[in-house]
């Protein structure tokens, strides 16, 4: 188990309110005409401090923006807004030339070792290349010595056997060791490790993680460890940050998060940790549905469509009713499905945003209201109904009003910070998450 860093340790990198949005498709012409083509909010308002010498785990499902955050920390992708402060400089705003100099200090280990090495460059050249780029070795002989040293450090021995090899001649684990050697040769202080073992065989995973811990001890490295696998995060990290749709929903010391998970999403993740069964490395299904589209994140708390504890202020909207109807219709028979669907004039109306929605009925609004009332009666525990403040008939339509959405922010609790209204005394005086353990 890695030793805990002193909490008074100074910050290596401070991330403040960082957002990275990717523009969606859309031609140059569309942009010229000022048409908004929309954007994927890969990282959306993230703040945290990376302390010198710690291992911070970034945990989340696929598409939660972990890789994007890691790339932004190295200046490989430009932030849309926010700052990344390293030694008093903002990496996100640095010029490309200055960034290149910083890259001696900030290095990355990639998820796919098979793609991270130039297939046409032998190992000796590839691993020595950072030295050449940053002019860190006076002579070719000095460079060679340091390459040999790096190869020995990552366990690619006997070195002479590996110097002349090409990536195609290596196994996955050996490639990842080579990638690590290339990353440490310039003497960095931070390594961003983007799922460094997820594409490796079970048998070599532990060895690579051990190697990384050994390097951290010997070289005083700081890691940002990106993973979707809580089991390795528990073993490897001092602190973990749980990500969901571009946001950090809970962050704190690993032991605390695992002992007492607070955010409903963290709880769901932990409940899904597989028994030590090597064949299950992906998280099991979370309750209720898929991770939503990052181009159109849900309002309020992005987790509310899947959250079993969601209530009034969590951000209910028409889309949630549509999801509810669709899930009902997959369960009931074909005839009833057709009958119920024909009550609506236009199902597309269920995509309109806003706190107040009007649903036009095809024939009579009363039938529609009856359907909604029945749904509520059948499953009164459904969190959706906690967000509905009013349902009325207005002529040929049913008007639904939702509670005003509130966007959650990280609330400090002990050493942990959680982003959930259940812990906000102003919003949820009565809700006690602990007695609603999923």
């Amino acid at each position: 188990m890695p030793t805990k860093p002193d909490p008074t340790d100074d910050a290596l990198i401070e991330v403040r309110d960082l957002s990275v949005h990717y523009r969606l498709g859309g031609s140059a012409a569309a942009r010229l005409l000022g048409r908004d083509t929309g954007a994927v909010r890969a990282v959306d308002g993230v703040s945290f401090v990376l302390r010198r010498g710690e291992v911070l785990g970034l945990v989340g499902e696929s598409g939660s923006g972990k890789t994007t955050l890691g790339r932004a920390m190295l200046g490989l992708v430009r932030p849309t807004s926010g700052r990344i402060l390293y030694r008093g400089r903002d990496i996100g705003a640095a010029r490309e030339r200055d960034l290149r100099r910083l890259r001696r200090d900030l290095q990355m280990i990639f998820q796919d070792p098979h793609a991270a090495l130039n297939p046409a460059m032998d190992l000796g050249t590839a691993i020595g290349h950072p030295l050449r780029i940053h002019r860190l070795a006076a002579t070719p002989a000095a460079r060679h010595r340091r390459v040999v040293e790096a190869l020995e450090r990552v366990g690619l021995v006997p070195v002479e056997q590996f110097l002349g090899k090409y990536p195609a001649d290596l196994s996955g684990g050996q490639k990842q060791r080579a990638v690590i050697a290339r990353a440490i040769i310039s003497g960095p202080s931070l390594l961003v490790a983007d799922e460094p073992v997820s594409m490796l065989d079970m048998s070599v995973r532990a060895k690579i993680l051990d190697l990384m811990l050994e390097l951290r001890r010997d070289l005083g490295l700081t890691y940002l460890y990106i993973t979707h696998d809580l089991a390795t995060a528990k073993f490897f990290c001092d602190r973990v940050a749980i990500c969901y749709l571009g946001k950090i929903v809970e962050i704190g010391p690993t032991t605390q998060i695992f002992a007492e998970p607070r955010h409903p999403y963290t709880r769901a993740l932990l409940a899904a940790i597989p028994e030590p069964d090597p064949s299950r490395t992906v998280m099991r299904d979370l309750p209720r549905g898929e991770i939503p589209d990052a181009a159109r994140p849900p309002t309020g708390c992005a987790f509310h469509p899947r959250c079993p504890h969601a209530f009034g202020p969590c951000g209910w909207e028409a889309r949630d009713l549509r999801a509810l109807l669709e899930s009902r219709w997959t369960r009931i028979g074909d005839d009833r499905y057709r009958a119920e669907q024909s009550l609506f004039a236009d199902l597309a109306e269920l995509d309109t945003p806003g706190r107040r929605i009007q649903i036009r009925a095809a024939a009579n609004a009363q039938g529609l209201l009856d359907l909604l009332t029945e749904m509520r009666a059948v499953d009164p525990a459904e969190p959706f109904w906690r967000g509905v403040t009013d349902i009325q008939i207005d002529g040929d339509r049913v008007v639904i009003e939702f509670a005003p959405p509130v966007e959650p922010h990280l609330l400090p609790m002990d050493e942990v910070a959680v982003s959930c209204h259940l812990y906000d005394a102003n919003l949820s005086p009565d809700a006690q998450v602990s007695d609603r353990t999923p």
Partner: protein
Amino acid sequence: MSQLSVEPVEEPREPAPQGGRGIRRVLSPVRSARGIARILLWAGAAISVLFVVLAVFAPWIAPYRFDQYSAGGHPFPKQGAPDATHLFGTTVQSLDVASRVVFGARTALEVVVQSVVISLLVGVPLGLVSGYLGGWLDRSLVLVMDALFAFPSLLLAIVLSFLLSGLIGGTVTAAALSITVVYIPQYFRVVRNTTVSAKEATYVEAARAIGARPITVMRRYLFTNVVQSVPVIGTLNAADAILTLAALGFLGYGVQPTQAAEWGYDLQRAVADAGAGIWWTGLYPGLAIVLLVTGLTLAGEGLNETLNPTLRTRPLRRVLLPPLPATLAPRTHRDRP
């Protein structure tokens, strides 16, 4: 699954000596060419090599010089039929057809080599820069190259040859340059498109992450992986260049007859002979063109088939099943996991 072992039909890659690794890696698909591709490749290569030999050793192979019309004080016959002294006969200008065909190979080779080299030197770096940097530079280059590409290639070559003949005369280099312009867009396109997809590869981002400048990324990371598609266009273009050169010569815009022997020009002079039953002046240069173009095309197609992964169908490998333990044998005819 562990009971199946896949036996490659061919020997596994032998550990190559340190020195020639790079070349060997590039050539390994050629050595592993199979079936039709192999036949095409070898037939094409054989024909091409024959012409290269003719070109290089022309002065020793040809009985006379390409512009020689007399020997030992005896002028050659005019439009003389093939005989022992003039194996392929003589032309209306009393030139030896056999010698002109052999020296024509030299002209063709010079033009092809020069034009391919120049278009490579221009097209590949442009494509690399355009594809990697993108932006307005890329857009304008693509526009220019597409315009050039859409232009009828022979017309383009004629226009350029016309312009160049004023500057440097109807030399071999002028002909090569006019042909070059036709081929630059092809190298540009292929290299640019491969670069655009290759720059998304993780190893390119990794190169940026270790602090490589764009020029270093292009030279050390993209170039070696992008040029692999170039030999194919090179050979295909070589065949096309021969045809364009001959067309230029035939139309009178090519290499001037005083500069070198050129098949297209000879064909054009032979047009009038054909009606008079003089077949040898036209047949031999024509045959040379057809044969060399065929050879280069075969080699190009063979290479294409071998190197281009989308066309390539790998030869089937034999799957060897080890003998099963007797107890299991009856059940596992249709084995299921």
